[in-house]
């Protein structure tokens, strides 16, 4: 995914996706990358060394290090449970000057990553990417049901 040749100018914000599942993280990465285009580095830290499910602080640390090579700042998105604990532990292990360049987004992984990637693709900083990603928490996917019972088959009154 990196592409060879001379290193391109560092991006503003990279994403790091932390998940228990390698498959899940790769799928989210694929989805987010497609929406964002090639300018946003998206790294994953997912699964344990032996391929089983879990999150690993040392793998997250390595992904953060690489993200900060390729971008000025990084936003981390994660799935459940120990994904956060291990991300926080990885941050503890990161030297202070680099830790300050990392922001955690408290957002649903798939929706948050897509919004974050699109936002990052316009070259904004990590804080703005985080804010937008966290809006995914309240994002409705199904239109409000009571809004338009419009063509209710029975044509009952009730309505509004």
């Amino acid at each position, binding site marked *: 995914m990196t592409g060879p040749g001379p290193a391109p100018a560092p991006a503003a914000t990279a994403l790091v996706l932390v998940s228990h599942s390698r498959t899940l993280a790769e799928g989210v990465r694929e989805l987010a990358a497609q929406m964002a285009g090639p300018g946003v580095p998206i790294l994953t830290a997912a699964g*344990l*060394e032996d391929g089983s499910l*879990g*999150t*690993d*602080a*040392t793998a997250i640390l390595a992904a953060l290090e690489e993200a900060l090579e390729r971008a000025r700042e990084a936003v981390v998105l994660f799935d459940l*449970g*120990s994904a956060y*604990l*291990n991300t*926080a*532990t990885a941050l*503890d*292990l990161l030297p202070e000057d680099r830790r300050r360049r990392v922001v955690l987004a408290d957002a649903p992984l798939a929706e948050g990553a897509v919004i974050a990637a699109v936002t990052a693709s316009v070259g904004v900083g990590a804080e703005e990417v985080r804010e937008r990603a966290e809006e995914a928490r309240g994002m409705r996917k199904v239109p409000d049901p009571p809004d338009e019972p419009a063509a209710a088959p029975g044509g009952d009154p009730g309505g509004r």
Partner: protein
Amino acid sequence: MMGDEPAAPAGGTPAPGGAAAGPGPGGDGAGTPVDGEAIRAFIQRFAEKVAAHKDELTALDAAIGDADHGTNMDRGLQAALERLPGEGAVPADLLKAAAMALISKVGGASGPLYGTAFLRAAGAVAGKAALAPGDVLALFQAALAGIQERGKAARGEKTMVDALAPAVDALEAALGRGAALGEALAEAARAARAGSDATIPLVVTKGRASYLGERSKGHRDPGSLSATLMMEAAAETLGGPAR
């Protein structure tokens, strides 16, 4: 905290009443200072205890968790033993090496929690070749604070905090009234055990088991048991000679 002077705290004139721990040998109340080798023995003993209780830890975790606490902790501590630096290492080096092994090898939530505990413990005693009782207290206080910060857990939430927090309180109180380190750590271990017992009727509010709600009642929290084993290992290895 607490200067480096070796025998300062309870030492000088051992309070006549405070000889509860070892009347005979413990002439100087402060006992031997805790050096790297004592910390190595502590980590080894913790690993032995977890190995011996592996099935029990896993069975507890099977009742309300994902049945891997014993296996995970055993794997992490065995990795820690392999990575401990050799003779001459100071306490902080040993604790840090154990922390990194736990962080990378335990998995689940226990890995980052115990890893952070050992990492903070190492930070609390950085640069010291030998630890006075006050340093040992600082070590466990830092470990507890790390776990609470990382896990956002308070007492009564059916977690390892329910064993560790009373243990640290007991350690502080015992040292505060002039008990020798060995006795203070023994009290801390008993407080940890009682705290773990007290998790049995509680409802889980943290982690995967919290999805079970009321059904988590009636089972001991596995993390509180591994934390108790840690404090018992400390009492057996950091309290000076011949306990």
